[in-house]
């Protein structure tokens, strides 16, 4: 089975959920690392930064918001998808303000999650190339537009 090169980190304290999700991703050609707490998640990001993090919000100890804030400070290019059982509109708005790529609610369809992971990865990897190509072609405005979100995330 050929694995896609996307480095995924799943951070969730619901052990059974995250282990099963990891297996389902594996069967679809994705390797994912798992962390069962915010603390463990941050350690794994430090040791081996992933491309995309799928992050729960409410966890004992360091919660998802703190993880998101810390990751965006140290690794602003890492894409963070929030996947939570909690979460009203206020939490969603906060997550986006802090630089989350997307906000999904449990229970979710695995194909929706995969689509989101692929998009997040594509944006992370391709944006600089797309912007460079635009700039090369003289379309500086579009190049700036493409990179704008990336820069904003760095400032967050």
């Amino acid at each position, binding site marked *: 089975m050929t694995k896609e090169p996307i480095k995924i980190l799943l951070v969730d304290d*619901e052990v059974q959920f995250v282990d*099963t999700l990891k*297996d389902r991703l*594996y069967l679809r050609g994705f390797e994912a690392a798992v962390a069962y707490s915010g603390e463990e998640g941050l350690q794994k990001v430090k040791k081996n930064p992933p491309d995309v993090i799928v992050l729960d919000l*409410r966890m004992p*100890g360091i*919660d998802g918001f703190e993880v998101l804030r810390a990751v965006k400070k140290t690794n602003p290019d890492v894409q963070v998808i929030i996947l939570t*059982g909690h979460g*009203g509109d206020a939490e969603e708005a906060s997550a986006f303000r802090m630089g989350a790529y997307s906000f999904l609610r449990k*229970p979710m369809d695995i194909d929706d999650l995969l689509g989101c992971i692929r998009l997040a990865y594509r944006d992370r990897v391709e944006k600089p190339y797309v912007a460079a190509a635009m700039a090369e072609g003289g379309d500086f405005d579009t190049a700036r537009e493409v990179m704008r979100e990336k820069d904003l995330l760095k400032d967050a």
Partner: protein
Amino acid sequence: MDRSECSSRLLASAMHELRNALAVIRECVGLASDVARLQARGGEAARNIPKGMTARTVQDLDEVQRQVSRASEIADAVDFLGEASTSAGRSAQCDLARVASVFCVLARRRARAFHMELLAEASNEPVWCARDAMDVLLDLLAVFDICASAGGDVQVCFKAQRRKEGPGLLVSLGAGGETKEMVVSALAGSGSLMPDQGGWASRLVPWVSGDTKHFWLSLGAGQTA
């Protein structure tokens, strides 16, 4: 905190817990379905299924049963909360054992965020109290907030009892972490939990003088333990 806020907070906690149970069910069933589909396809697809994953799907069926029970327990507790909210102020009495048990289910997810475990000790028979169920839930959430604001990280067990002064709840602290002493101090200093409402006062006092593990939540009218 009023009844409406109490109800909203408990409902939010319960819905979070329910979504997690549903998410586990969905993934377990999804994995079983994935594996069955790959096996049906045969050939390389079937051979590529990691060793042990097929066996795991069988174990996952047990997990699904557990999660369905968990979801069903939450649904029952939410039903109770709905009824208690609707009849708030009109209900003359409630079974304290049942209210404590429902509270533990409703607040479980919230407790987890503070490294707290909530337990309700079963009672052989109802412990009736002339209080509104919603008011008792309010008192229990107040006790929870005291523990959480002092750092949490402790096991809290509720047991409905009737003493000669009246019905109430024995609040026992079990295993805990570094913040347990702070939780004990916070509970010991809490005294009157809710302002006296129409002659009803809830008080939290040490079970016996000097006891740092057990507290008595007195729910009688203007009474102290």
